[in-house]
């Protein structure tokens, strides 16, 4: 139990890297698709809806496998410069996670945009503020505040999602835990150590979100 701790701790770094990078890219994807969802053009709207429907309706494992095993099969794709990124399991995992969390984030942000009281926008208009500035300075800040609790949940779901990176040969926290279990046959001890690390990260994320909620409450 004690000997496995340093190994698991160093694997936590990979888990945290995967988590932060995929959340970073996912936030941009989510914001982009949330804005597309609010577009009045029916094709753009349906496209954004389809994106979030497909990524939320299929397991993350399938998405990783399609990106990691599937895309390498296309001959043409392997000759493009993108192949440098897609041949690495690390980047494949991040791309899959970012697309997945992007779909969930877009739903969270969309519902936040839609719950903004029209009064805020009307107030901005009556003060003669251009609609672009209303969007960036009024709608986005309010939407971010509204979506904080739901986004906190999404971060925790994504943290659990990063465990799937172990299925594409990455040695993250779950991957190392599985390796130790299968060599020492001590599943319960390793589970307790790895589980506590995950719970600790969850706890920290939860408290950060709580702090932010309090700070930006109005």
């Amino acid at each position, binding site marked *: 139990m004690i000997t496995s701790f340093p190994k698991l701790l160093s694997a936590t770094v990979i888990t945290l890297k995967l988590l932060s990078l995929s959340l970073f890219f996912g936030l941009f994807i989510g914001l982009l698709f949330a804005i597309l969802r609010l577009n009045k053009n029916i094709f753009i709207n349906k496209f954004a809806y389809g994106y979030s429907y*497909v990524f939320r309706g299929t*397991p993350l494992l399938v998405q990783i496998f399609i990106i990691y*095993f599937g895309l390498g*099969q296309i001959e043409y794709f392997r000759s493009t410069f993108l192949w440098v990124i897609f041949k690495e399991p690390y980047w494949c995992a991040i791309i899959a996670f970012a697309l997945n969390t992007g779909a969930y984030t877009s739903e969270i942000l969309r519902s936040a945009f839609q719950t903004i009281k029209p009064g805020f926008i009307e107030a901005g208009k009556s003060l003669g503020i251009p609609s672009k500035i209303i969007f960036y300075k009024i709608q986005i800040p309010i939407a971010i505040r509204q979506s904080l609790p739901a986004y906190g949940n999404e971060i925790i779901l994504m943290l659990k999602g990063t465990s799937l990176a172990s299925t594409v040969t990455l040695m993250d926290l779950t991957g190392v835990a599985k390796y130790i*279990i299968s060599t020492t046959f001590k*599943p319960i001890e390793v589970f307790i150590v790895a589980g506590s690390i995950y719970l600790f990260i*969850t*706890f920290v994320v939860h408290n950060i979100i709580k702090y932010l909620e309090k700070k930006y409450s109005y």
Partner: protein
Amino acid sequence: MELLAFGKTGWGDELFIATLMTIAVSITAMLIGFLFALIFTPLKLSKNKFLNFIGNSYTTVIRGVPELLVIYLFFFGGSGAVMYVASIFGYNEYIEINAFITGSCAIGIISGAYSTEVFRGAIQSIDKGQFEASQVLGLKRFVYFFRVIMPQMLRLAIPNLSNVWQITLKDTSLISVTGLVEIMRQSYIAAGSTRDPLFFYSFAAVLYLSLTFLSMKLINRLEIKYSRGF
């Protein structure tokens, strides 16, 4: 398209059976989850601090730890635990547990944590007057729970339970690591032997999408049925 043919030439029948397996595991896991929710929801609502602590730790731990880790715990630790219990009763031979049972139990415990939260929320949002009214009427606890609380709770819980069902259905894909032949495992086998992973994994995605789509349709009908009169 010939890759999906039924019979010996294609993978159609194998994938069909695998889909049935996914549905079977999901339903079993969901039922096991309900069983856990039935035990842990009263604990979470209990005023006793110790019982409350047990209920809270169950939902917090399971919802904070990756599903894959829980599955590995069951997969590697399951038969050991059962053999240990059996050895107390004097049975010392090797026991191997079926992958279906380990998988459904692992997913069931995860699904149970989510169901517990849903039921707790639903019970807490029932109007207090209902509790008081049934006390005034002198209803027995049993009748009061099954005839007064249950129907109201179910109506409130169904939309959220449909989310739990979706999560459970998607989580079953993780059981493929234990070797149970469900959609994901079958696609893995097919992709390996035909060297066509893109097609088979995309087809798996289509299968999962149609399962979630169909179950949403069914649950919507249920929801309409249970919200009659409101």
